[in-house]
């Protein structure tokens, strides 16, 4: 019987040769992940389990990234409790200064390999599909139980295939592909499915573009967003000290619930407009829309390549006087590499604020919260009402080129038009 990539990974995690969609399994997890936001609840649940011990301290990771550096006493205390729990149980613990946003940090640290099953108490755990790992968001109770058992229950998802043909135009990247895809299928379009991204465009995509796409699979309701690991993946994980993993592919005759094919050649950059990620417009429809803030980085577009893209646009420019721009590298390493490459200097010269890695503004936490009536272009993944602050503020989701260009222009714009605008 033919199997999809998702089925093959899960089968390997429960020692089965055959798994069908709809089947319930207890699968071994390779990594359990929590932030302080979900970790604190997981600790509470963990302590309720009689005889609870961490199944393997090396496979449990707490990353302090949502409200760090601690924004107030409450967050400081929550982080403190997580820190103490980590010390007590000897688990991996990433604190301020040694950390980053969890989904950028984990692969960077070589903690994830193709074919892994990642149980993360964060809905964007699906990100790890970018290297062919089955990452999925779970609740804190699940995280507590996975920490103890080293396994999680799940229903084997159906899979849908997304095939991208053609050649990527200028200024168009992985972020645009996923925004367009969500626009086509809707935020429920892949409900409890594994989204499998493939096609000649995907084969050419850089790892950071794959990262952005897998990251937003949850915005289409997916259980996981997967890329079959390939030579690019191998190169990527080798650079991070790993040379293992399962290089699996779907069988050619595997069954899919839906197969979507897109020709990307005519694509232009896409923007998700308030208040739902499926509300996607081509940038040409939004040209000239004034903004107050741009946020570049965080998890969806917080890799070094994303910062390079922003720097490419910002170099030699000042951002619009009305606009604040906040650059958030995805990890300490990304920050350091960016600094060594001179990107940070470019950002500061352009009057951008450069933040320590944090999820902060994406969820309206800190480091760039919006006031009523403000409009922000952001490289993050959600634009629900009030997501970045006041319920009457607005978030527009874009790729880093567009966000950077818009910061300079003070309005939504493609980089090509910057020159014209400057002349006008």
């Amino acid at each position, binding site marked *: 019987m033919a199997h999809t990539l998702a089925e093959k990974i899960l089968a390997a995690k429960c020692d089965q040769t055959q798994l069908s969609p709809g089947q319930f399994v207890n699968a071994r997890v390779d990594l359990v992940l929590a932030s302080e936001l979900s970790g604190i609840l997981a600790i509470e649940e963990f302590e309720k389990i009689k005889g609870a011990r961490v199944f393997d301290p090396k496979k449990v990771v707490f990353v302090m990234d949502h409200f760090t550096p601690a*924004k107030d006493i*409450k*967050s400081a205390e*929550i982080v403190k409790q997580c820190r103490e729990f980590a010390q007590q149980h000897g688990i991996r613990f990433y604190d301020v200064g040694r950390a980053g946003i969890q989904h950028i940090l984990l692969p960077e640290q070589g903690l994830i390999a193709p074919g892994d099953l990642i149980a993360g108490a964060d809905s964007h755990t699906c990100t790890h599909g970018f290297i062919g790992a089955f990452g999925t968001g779970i609740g804190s109770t699940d995280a507590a139980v996975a920490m103890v*058992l080293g396994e999680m229950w799940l229903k084997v998802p159906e899979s849908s295939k997304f095939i991208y043909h053609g050649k990527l135009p200028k200024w168009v990247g992985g972020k645009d592909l996923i925004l367009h895809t969500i626009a086509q299928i809707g935020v429920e379009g892949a*409900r409890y499915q594994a989204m499998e991204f493939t096609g000649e465009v995907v084969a050419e995509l850089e790892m950071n573009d794959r990262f952005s796409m897998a990251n937003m699979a949850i915005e289409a309701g997916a259980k996981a967003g997967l890329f079959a690991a390939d030579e690019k993946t191998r190169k990527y994980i080798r650079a991070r000290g790993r040379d293992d993993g399962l290089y699996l592919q779907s069988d050619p005759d595997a069954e899919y619930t839906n197969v979507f094919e897109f020709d990307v050649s005519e694509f232009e950059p896409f923007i998700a407009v308030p208040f739902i990620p499926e509300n996607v417009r081509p940038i040409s429809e939004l040209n000239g829309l004034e903004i107050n803030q741009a946020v570049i980085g965080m998890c969806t577009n917080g890799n070094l390549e994303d910062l390079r893209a922003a720097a490419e646009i910002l170099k030699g420019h000042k951002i619009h006087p009305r606009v604040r721009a906040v650059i958030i590298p995805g990890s300490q390493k990304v920050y350091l590499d960016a600094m060594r490459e001179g990107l940070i200097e470019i950002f500061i010269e352009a009057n951008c604020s450069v933040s320590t890695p944090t999820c902060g503004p994406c969820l309206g936490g800190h480091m760039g919260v919006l006031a009523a009536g403000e409009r922000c272009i952001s490289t993050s993944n959600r634009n*629900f009402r009030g997501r970045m602050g006041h319920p009457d503020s607005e978030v527009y989701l874009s790729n880093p080129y567009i966000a950077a260009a818009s910061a300079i222009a003070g309005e939504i714009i493609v980089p090509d038009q910057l020159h014209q605008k400057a002349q006008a």
Partner: protein
Amino acid sequence: MTYESFHNTNIGELLSVQAVRFSNQTFLRLDGERLTYADVEYQSCALAAGLRGLGIQPGDRLGVILPNTPAFVITIFAAAKAGLILVPINVRRDSDNVLTRLIKTRPKALVTFSEPKEFNGTDHLNMVTNMWSDLPDLAHLIAVSPTRKSQKKNRIISWNSLLDDTAPLVPSTAKPQNPAAIIHTLGSSGEPRGATLTHGGLVHNASNIAARLDCTAEDVFLGAIPFSNTFGLTSIILTCVVAGAQLVCMPHYRPHEALRLVEETSVTILPGVPTMFALELNHPDFNPSACASLRTGIMAGAPCPPELVRRVREEMGCNLLIGYGLTEASPAVTMTHLEDGPITATETVGRPLDDIELKVIKGKSESLSPGEEGELCVRGYNIMTGYWEDPQATAQVLDEEGWLHTGDLAIIDPDGPVRIVGRKDEVIIRGGFKIYPGSIEMVLRSFQGILDAAVVGVPDLIYGELTCACLVREPKADFAKEQVLAFARVHLPDYAIPDRVIFFEALPRHPGGPVQKDYLRERVRIRGHAWKFGRNVDTDAIIPARHCNTADPRELALHCMEDADANFVKKMRRGDLIVADSNFGCGSSREVAPLTIKAAGVSAVVAKSFARIFFRNAINIGLPILECPQAVDGINEGDEVEIEPAAGIIRNLTTGAQYQAVSFPDFLRRIIDVGGLLAYAEERLAEKNSA
């Protein structure tokens, strides 16, 4: 007093001894009639001789269907003196129930009466006459005060005429270990089983009760509990005789009558079931000063609400004792002491009577430590010899070491008092939580205006069972189920708050016996109003604005449901349903959103799929979900919806449409069954460790 001299005697001898000691003292009173101990001794000997004269031999059974009258008491002692085994049957049983008991025990003679006017038109003599042809062993039908016509027509023997027998009685030589009575009790499926009780067991038990009550010949008992059960037979009649005290007979129980008798006959000891005390306290005629004679009492026969016990102690001004027992144990097993402190006296059933051993077990025989909950087992002089001619049923409850497995779940406190928590076979397991209907019923009965309450578990696809409270309101009581639920929320743990409340005119009961719960269960369905949520109610969309104010995920999540709809939680009624599209409630609130809904009392979620995080967590905490996309599309907000959970049927009563939910996977059922993911994890952990 310990009354040790009665620890090894038979019922006939007990009366003979007391008739010598207290010969001219009043024993029985009914209206103006008074019979002394000597009178009762004389009449019971005469009746015994009369019965023997009919050819009834020691070991034969004597059926008795009489109300609480002196004739009943005399017949009891007469049977003992003649060596007959007494088979008393409650006057409230219908003819089918009477016949079953008579067929099983095959009495040689039966004593009954005929007062249809007093007993709702039931003519007991007629009833038994009509079934006589089905009772080949029944040689003699004896009636207290029969009409001449019936005597002649139906060969009925007059009870009074038997008293005229002057033949010398050869007293029975019944040994303490010989059977004295077969008293029926109901098995788990409602079938009657006759507990065979011995002379020694009954009298010894009575003497232990008398000692606990500190009884003397000065005491006056009110005989309101039917003499046909062990509470009446042992704890009232025999206990009274052990003490040489008086017994005021009460053929029909009515609360105001009981209050009148307490005052007029200076009752000192008031035995009753909790309902009787509640009816008396709540009666408009109740006047604390009219209870001044009361010294003590026994509350037993059903779970005793501490609040009621406290009220009796305060308002009736008596040092009430609580007892626990069962027919198979003659009946008393434990009682509180007059000297007990307020908690033991109101919240426990006290300590075991002398010479009775207790243990609490898990499974078939594993003994538990004090403080641990398990099935209560009793061993001692008082345990029945077995169910009459039913070795199979006997073997189910009486083990080889003589322990009676009571089927009651109990905790023995480390310092001795026993707490009864419920019936093993009535336990409702709701999403892994054990719920004892008795304890909920007890709380609900303490709600002003509730006359009767029964809680049944109804099968549920997800929870395994849900609780349904079936209530009877007092006449003129005017309250809605919301008030009952508000009361329950204050007095019960959250998981024990009834999922459904249904009012009944009366609860179907076995006459004088327990509620017919099987019948009730059939009538219970889950019904509520639908609350519909679409995909835009995504808590992730609402919460972030609050992140600016707090970083505590618990605080954030607590607000999330109210944010979805300002009055969401307030408007929900227990038992309502959520009909949801799948994007409902994911994100940071993923733990608490389901908890909030659960706290609001939603009984089920009808969903398009088990898809996203919300549903995963709902399952993990045991919130029921029925997966049925068609129902989600076919139900509008506010529609009245009925669910038959076990069958997975969803009916929209507003539109008349019916839907079938996807069958719930066994895999998830296990998580629900054990009580949620944490409990499941403990099981898995144990499995893995043993592997």
